[in-house]
């Protein structure tokens, strides 16, 4: 992705970086790199930022002029040849999920409608390495790319009032993890015992844009063991550097 994103104003204190509207791994990778690059270069004038699929937003400190910041950003872009000097490595996390009762509320329904077995759904869901596109919807909720269309399933017609924290769901061709208890319309196929959002630590969200995850099927007994370890603070998630 040689092309640079466009830069425009977004409200009194916001600046938007923008690529053409598309869910595309290459576009997202370039967007994430440019976003992190600008955040690092201008951390003293930036209060926060948001990344999504093809756009990211910077929110400037209240007394900073948007016009001047845009000028700074453009100048920085022109002097940088990012993809050469700015190589970010990614972390691959292994996320344990129990695809059994009482957690897998909708897995039978998907199996029936797709006419495949539950074990096949688990096999398909645990196979890919999913890129974390961004965190949104709920604090710590990862938007994941790359789920197989073989197990896609439309959102529930009426959302559940309460979906438990850790629930793993499917909505259309997307898959994700409820990082806290919330109402929600995704089809629930399992639950992870991990804590995906913890305000006690510096970076409360377990994942960030640009990470990767793979799901690993565990049985109910293992779920309970890990749940205890998470509670006592002795659990550490399996992770490795991903090219």
């Amino acid at each position, binding site marked *: 992705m040689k092309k640079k994103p466009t830069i425009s104003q977004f409200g009194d204190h916001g600046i938007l970086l923008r690529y053409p509207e598309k869910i595309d791994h290459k576009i997202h990778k370039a967007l994430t790199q440019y976003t992190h690059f600008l955040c690092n270069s201008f951390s003293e004038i930036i209060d926060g930022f948001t990344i999504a699929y093809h756009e990211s937003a910077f929110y400037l400190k209240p007394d900073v002029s948007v016009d001047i910041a845009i000028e700074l950003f453009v100048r920085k872009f022109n002097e940088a040849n990012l993809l050469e000097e700015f190589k970010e490595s990614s972390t691959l996390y292994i996320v344990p999920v129990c695809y059994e009762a009482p957690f897998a509320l909708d897995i039978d329904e998907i199996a029936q409608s797709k006419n495949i077995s539950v074990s096949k759904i688990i096999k398909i869901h645990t196979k890919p390495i999913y890129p974390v596109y961004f965190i*949104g919807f709920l604090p710590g909720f990862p938007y994941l790319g790359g789920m197989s269309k073989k197990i896609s399933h439309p959102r529930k017609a009426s959302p559940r009032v309460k979906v438990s924290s850790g629930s793993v769901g499917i909505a259309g061709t997307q898959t994700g993890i409820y990082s806290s208890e919330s109402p929600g319309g995704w089809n629930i196929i399992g639950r992870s015992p991990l804590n995906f959002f913890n305000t006690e630590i510096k970076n409360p969200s377990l994942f*960030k844009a640009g990470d990767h995850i793979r799901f690993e099927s565990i049985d109910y007994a293992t779920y309970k063991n890990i749940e205890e370890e998470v509670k006592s603070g002795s659990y550490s998630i399996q992770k490795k550097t991903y090219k």
Partner: protein
Amino acid sequence: MIEVIHPGIHSTIQDAGRLSYREQGVPVSGAMDQHAYILANHLLQHEELAPVIEFTINGPTLYFYAETFIVLTGAEFHCKLNGKIISHASPIYVPAESTLEIGHVFKGNYGYLGILGGFSTEKILNSSSFHPILLPQAKLFKGMHLVYVKTKFKDTNFNARVIPVHDKFCRTKMDVYPGPDFNLLSKEQKEKLLNQKYFVDPSSNRMAIQMGNTPEISAPEIITAPVQPGTVQLTPSGQLIVLMRDAQTTGGYSRVLQLTDYAMNSLSQCEIGEGYEATFHLI
């Protein structure tokens, strides 16, 4: 210390919000009317902005164990301190063992109670703002104890009074920027969007304000993209939603407009229901 005798309809602690965790999906939160929040702090001569209580429709009743100073800003409520009516937007001395009753609102929507030194309730991610996802108990409750920083009033001239800007509480002309998806609309749709006289729908809350009397226009869903407080979304079914302080950080509806800070503060205080006009004005 202060004790909550009656919590009111929906009273929360608010400040400037959580600005630095948006990429982790954390809503900004903070006072709906940031202007009134800052004003409360200025009137108490705070050097740094400190948390206040925000209330709506019906405010809380509070018992003060020790003497202090307070100030009320934002929407105007029927307020009595030890049975006596007290003034708005002016620091007030509160003797020890006092009861403050904040009754029904009569102008605006969100009122603020600042206390000398500021509330020192628990901070989560560098902010005291209550948000239901981050706090299991995200509003004041009966019997709750609120602590604040003990300090001396700097200026003896505590008769300073600010005349509130009344016009922003009724007719609201909201200054807006074109949103990132403004150009998904045709010229005719843009005109309809900007020429319409809206009202604030009663279903509005701290997450979003629904506009009533919407023109018959709609916009397609988009691939999920960044949103912020003040983003105006137009849905495929023609709803017009202004995201407010507790909103999510990303969204999938077309972002047709973006309110200025000033417009967002004004809109939060705009009278609810039919009969009040609000229009968008492109800057």
